[in-house]
């Protein structure tokens, strides 16, 4: 019981601490924290439009979070989700722009292209780790930059004639849905929500219900024991990275085919892949946990846009508050330690 409960209480405690610290910052800067959070909530679920926009933000966070969490379970730290997301984005848009096909072929093709691109980008660090024991963090960080600049080059010089964004994808490759838009008063909510839900189920199914998932987790717990038990550690490392990359690529697909409908030159990282790390941590690397954490993060990001307008809290302060919540989530080890001390005293 206590183990199960602590799984839930610790992340909740981290979020609470973050919110409290955020309200202190708001108080110091002379804003009313209750009004601030009220407006933020209003920006998340206040109207249909905001609900739609929050859900749209959450979709990407779910997939980015799943990507990080999946690799974590095999003991790998896939910090390259950002890069895999960017290549997935571009690959999906490329297919969306380049072909004219009926929707039932075009859309799946574009989605698969994005997922494969992400998988390929994650395969590289996976392979290097398995073959040469190169640390996946280093390789995937470098590949983030490679992805950023290669896609910028492709957009600027290959896909377009020195333009800063691609054409819009054909309607037949678009995930956007007039039906969902009409439901949410023209928000940019798109069918990716279905893909995100399917992915949550897939991740849960692979890890909890299949032999493959068992092996992946076993490698995560103890490589040597797994090897002794006759599992191929190398195969599982590569497999884990590739599946993680598929999720990351799909996160990019959501942006490319759902939210934007094009790919533009980026001056820097989108940040979504990095936020995925926080989402995975907060969600304790489980499928359901990631979904809940993504709801929190997506909500915060979407709701934060409302704060500067309604009561004049500068967006910089909003950034600080979000960062504080991330900080306390990352510092959950400390909270866990405190909680344990507290429990021990209680036992005495």
């Amino acid at each position: 019981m206590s183990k199960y409960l602590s799984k839930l209480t610790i992340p909740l405690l981290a979020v609470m601490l973050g919110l409290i610290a955020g309200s202190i910052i708001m108080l110091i800067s002379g804003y009313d924290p209750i009004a601030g959070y009220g407006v933020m909530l209003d920006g998340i679920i206040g109207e249909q439009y905001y609900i739609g926009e929050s859900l749209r933000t959450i979709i990407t966070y779910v997939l980015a979070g799943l990507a990080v969490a999946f690799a974590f379970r095999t003991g790998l730290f896939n910090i390259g989700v950002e890069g895999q997301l960017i290549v997935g984005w571009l690959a999906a848009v490329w297919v969306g722009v380049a072909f004219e096909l009926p929707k039932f072929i075009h859309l799946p093709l574009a989605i698969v292209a994005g997922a494969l691109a992400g998988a390929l980008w994650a395969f590289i660090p996976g392979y290097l780790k398995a073959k040469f024991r190169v640390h996946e963090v280093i390789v995937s960080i470098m590949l983030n930059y490679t992805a950023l600049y290669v896609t910028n080059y492709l957009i600027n010089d290959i896909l377009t004639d020195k333009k800063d964004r691609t054409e819009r994808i054909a309607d037949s490759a678009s995930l956007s849905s007039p039906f969902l838009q009409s439901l949410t008063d023209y928000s940019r909510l798109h069918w990716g929500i279905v893909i995100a839900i399917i992915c949550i189920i897939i991740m849960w199914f692979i890890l909890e219900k299949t032999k493959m998932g068992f092996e992946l987790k076993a490698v995560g717990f103890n490589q040597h024991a797994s090897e002794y038990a006759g599992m191929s550690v190398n195969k599982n490392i590569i497999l884990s990275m590739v599946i993680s990359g598929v999720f990351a690529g799909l996160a990019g697909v959501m942006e490319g085919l759902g939210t934007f409908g094009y790919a533009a030159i980026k001056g820097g990282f989108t940040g979504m892949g990095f936020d995925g790390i926080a989402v995975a941590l907060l969600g304790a690397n489980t499928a359901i946990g990631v979904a809940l954490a993504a709801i929190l993060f997506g909500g915060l990001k979407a709701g934060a846009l409302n704060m500067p307008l309604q009561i004049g809290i500068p967006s910089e302060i909003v950034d600080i508050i979000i960062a504080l919540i991330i900080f306390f989530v990352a510092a959950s080890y400390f909270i866990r330690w405190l909680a344990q001390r507290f429990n021990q005293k209680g036992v005495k």
Partner: protein
Amino acid sequence: MKKRKFGLALSLILAAGTMLGACGNAEKDDAKDNGADKKENFTVAMVTDIGGVDDKSFNQSAWEGLKSFGEENGLEKGKDGYNYLQSKSDADYTTNLNTLVREDYNLIFAIGYALAESVADVADQRPEAQFAIVDSVVEKDNVASITFKEHQGSFLVGVIAGLQTKTNKVGFVGGVEGELIKKFEVGFIAGVKSVNPKAEVVSKYAGSFGDAAKGKSIASSMYASGVDIIYHAAGGTGNGVFAEAKDLKQKDPSKEIYVIGVDRDQHEEGAVTVDGKDYNVTLTSMVKRVDVAVKDLATKAKAGEFPGGQIIEYGMEEDGIKISDSKENISEETLKEVEKWTEKIKSGEQKVPTTDEELKVMKF
């Protein structure tokens, strides 16, 4: 056992959801009340691009225009008067525009060509709202488009750079490569080459309008390679160019390096004090009166003459483009030359290129 815990978790979530929902509703009612009594004023707001409202350049200039409009009409910053929303990434453009529409602003400015696609989408969905876009053209009945002849002003600062350079090497730092910034670049190159055919122009794009660190590193390598004047058309990225120039000046005040500012008079950006002596690294600025354009349009819209569907172009003829007033670093002869070229451009005698192809035809 397991089921019970699940039930507990579920009821927790439900309870939280209900509470949150309740808060949300209360806030919503508040917002509605505010909305009802604000219709008395003419309200106007703008969405920045990722440079932010304090980019010392384009967005800031637009905001100054809006502020001055608000002050003249007795409006206050906030929901009931004039306001801005900053975009942190390009994902925010559509959301921000929509948010402002939902707040019933009478006129909504989109600052920067990057917002064109979002404006087109939102304008279709909200035909009753009025939009204006700066630096791009969106052909919709409820959108007014404001553009500038930046190539003209860039040509003039090019003339200044061509005459003032001592190393015969000048630099151009652009934000994101595309049609708009190209106008700055080719105008500048044409200006330099018209007065100084021997001079070399190095161009470099940062890939962002909001990356001051990138601007600094580009400026650093340019100055190191012998460039003595850099013209930037890079919004917030350009702040890094100023920072680098000031750093170099700090280390060696005898060094003659300059920056040409853009959009606003960036004279104050270039001020640096070394050992009690004041220097300024800003040679001049290509001033693009976004503030004037924004204010004009807001005034028109307030009077009920919103020029929807029209393209309003500002050039030197309309005083929308000019050279900044601070000229302490420029020699008398250069200023005379500038006047000569100004007349030539105004009279149409000197054609100013806007694309690479047009520049090639001029055969420098």
